[in-house]
């Protein structure tokens, strides 16, 4: 696929919070990452409003393990409460993703220089990302490294698993062109250790949440890709 990168992301802990456990504050992780969490990681490597990152597939390299920790989350009113957070332990995923230009950003059409964006993306990945990487929650630091997707042995090679209903991600106005925030659900299936993501616009289980406006950008707010590419 055009403009594709392949990399591995790994860390000691991950917390892809199941929203049902988030309401009360005793967070527990999903067994696998959501599309949105993976997209966030790709966007941490390199992103501009001009482009949309699309995650194609992930490969689960290590066994899914859980570990709980006692936490002292901060309260609005000051002070702490006590909660149990349940994390995934020792995770590693191989990710395949690519970028496309955001069709809902005609205002940024001047910034669409595919070759240069791709070159910067690859160079950023080489460097470990332009922003720091975390797996689902800020306290779960992670690292990215370029690697071939099919390389190496995964724990679930040859294994198929169903994960029930999960959050896929959020529809934000700047990527859908609709002025609302919506949540997408899907039924992920792992085949031979690989989860192939449905594209966000193909998800059928969508629940609108609330009205929301896209942020506007002008040429003055952002640095054109041509300039950035020259600097690098």
């Amino acid at each position, binding site marked *: 696929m055009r403009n594709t990168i392949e990399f591995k992301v790994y860390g000691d802990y991950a917390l892809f919070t199941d929203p049902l*456990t988030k309401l009360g504050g005793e967070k527990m992780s999903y067994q696998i990452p959501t599309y949105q969490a993976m997209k966030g990681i790709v966007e941490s490597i390199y992103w501009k409003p001009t482009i949309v990152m699309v995650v194609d597939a992930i490969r689960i390299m290590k066994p899914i393990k*859980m570990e*709980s920790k006692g936490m002292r989350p901060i309260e609005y009113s000051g002070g702490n409460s006590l909660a149990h*957070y349940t994390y995934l332990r020792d995770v590693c995923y191989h990710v395949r993703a690519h970028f496309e230009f955001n069709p809902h950003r005609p205002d940024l059409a001047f910034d669409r220089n595919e070759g240069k964006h791709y070159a910067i993306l690859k160079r950023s990945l080489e460097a470990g990302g332009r922003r720091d990487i975390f797996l689902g929650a800020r306290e779960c630091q992670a690292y990215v490294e370029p690697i071939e997707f099919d390389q190496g042995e995964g724990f679930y090679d040859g294994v198929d698993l169903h994960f*029930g209903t999960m959050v896929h991600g959020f529809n934000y106005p700047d990527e859908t062109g609709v002025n609302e925030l919506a949540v997408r659900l899907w039924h992920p299936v792992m085949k031979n250790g690989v989860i192939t993501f449905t594209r966000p616009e193909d998800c059928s289980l969508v629940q609108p949440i609330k009205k929301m406006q896209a942020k506007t950008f002008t040429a003055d707010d952002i640095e054109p890709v041509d300039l950035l590419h020259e600097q690098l």
Partner: protein
Amino acid sequence: MSVWQQLYETYNQHLDEVGKSESRWEGKTFTLLPISHTTQTAHITVNITPNGEFHTAEVIEKGGGNTLIPSTEDSSSRAGSVIAPYPLHDKLPYVAGDYEAFGGVYKKDNAYQVYINNLKKWSESSHGFDRLKSIYTYLQKGRLIEDLVNEKVLFTETDGTLKWTWKDKEEKPKIYSIVTGGMEGAFIRFHVHSSEQLYKEPWQDSEFYQSFIAYYAEQAGDSTLCFVTGEQKVGSTKHANKIRNAGDKAKLISANDSSGFTYRGRFDKASEAATISYEVSQKAHNALKWLIQRQGKLIDQRVFLVWGSQVTEMPSAVDSTFSLAALFNDVEEKEVFDTNRDGARAFSDALIGYKRKLPQQTVNILIIDAATTGRLAILYYRSFDQEQYFKRLESWHTEHPWEYVYFDREKKRRVFIGAPSLHDIATAAYGPRANEKLIKATVERLVPCVVDGRIVPDDVRRCLIQRASNPVGLEAWEWEKTLQIACGMINKKEGMTVALDSNLKDRDYLFGRLLALADYLERKALGKENRSTNAIRYMNAFSQNPARTWLTIQSALQPYQAKLGGKVTYINKLIDEVGSQLDPSDFTNKPLSGKYLLGFYSQRHDLYQKREETNLSNEESVEA
């Protein structure tokens, strides 16, 4: 699959169990609750005739009041001054129309009016039926307290108001000792009594359940996307509590973002962050409560639960080989408990035999606990293919097992080969007086050792070695148990057997054997005298400074060797033999690893085994 989905499916697999009462411990019954129902303790049963007339009333004996009642979302979570009646059975202020007339005070609204209107709607709906209508017909007359007073169940003061509490010295009527607090807390249940036909009691009658479930489903609110099934269904915002026990207020799903940073930021309301359908929430919670009461293991309120979605009973990952064997009741007991080396094999055969009886299904492991009183957290959740689960279980219990002595309920000494329960490992590591929190946390850490095949954490193993090396500080039986468990856990890493390996030239192992021989020799010389041997008393020092301590122990042995003379030649020989196997460069004061315990145990086991097995003539010939 998510835990909610598994619980939901478990409920749907067991619809035929709904409403049936079961008991695990004597006197304590539980059921798989129908949706839109809950349980309450009732104090008075009021019998009503089919025409809606008062028949009789009786006070329910203590312990017999457990009643399955219909309930709405609001009523099941009512608190304080909120008026939210249960649909059918409820407390006196709700069900008695003459409550005010007898001096009762409503906090704000007239509870009876709300109650009777709701009951009217239900009984007049298309789901209403004759017996429900009889109850309604009677209650709308509003003369319940009057009838109860006439029936001499309740009593009045001289001014005609109800006697709320019984202050007189003379003997109390039954109802006043059963209801704690005043009579406003008396819970009334209704039953239709007919001389012509024997009706099932409403709290055991599926006609009542079905009628209310169907009626309540029609009251439906807005439908939302359910995060568990992905279907558009009527949502629920109030979720069940009383999950671990009847007094447990902690909820698994709650929303409390007025005070904590939980979902706010992107969302303003809890319903924006996640939604779950009423049906799924009810079924999943009911299934969870049922499973916990049925087969959950509680350590300091932390629940360890293993269940299968179709056949719920599952060999639990936290149990010992011994107690698991009880599950396989069709397997000959002796096979499993045999001390011979085939013990482990027999266990795995039994396990496979048991598995064969089960359908293909998913096995779930769930650990839940509450950090604070209000919220429950899922600390661990795994769902396994059954095949895989049994494989892991088998290898935990059969790979490198140790022998354990166990006293069963009849105080009979039993020996089994296998693995101890996780709770036993934790208490052996930290002692019987350890904080319960530490014990439950350790058990939780050990669960992945069983289900993921991880090795036992180093710190736990070190604690075990430490305590097993200190027999002086423990009672004899406690030390034996600790020693066995320590050996078992060391062995999970070393992969040996209980049987003595006389060719092993490992330094720590040989030192352990020496200690056992010294202990055996001295014990023999002491005869009936019941005191610790030098070997046992110096065990701790020996593990730290083996070479130096061995000199002390050996010199202390000399008088006993002299006393016993020719009777212990073979032991002296053995000591020499083991000593000669030790490489001179290994005879140092470097502290011993846990492996010395294996050498100690196996050597001792071997000596006592010989005494039991070899017949006397044989032993004499050795001694001669």
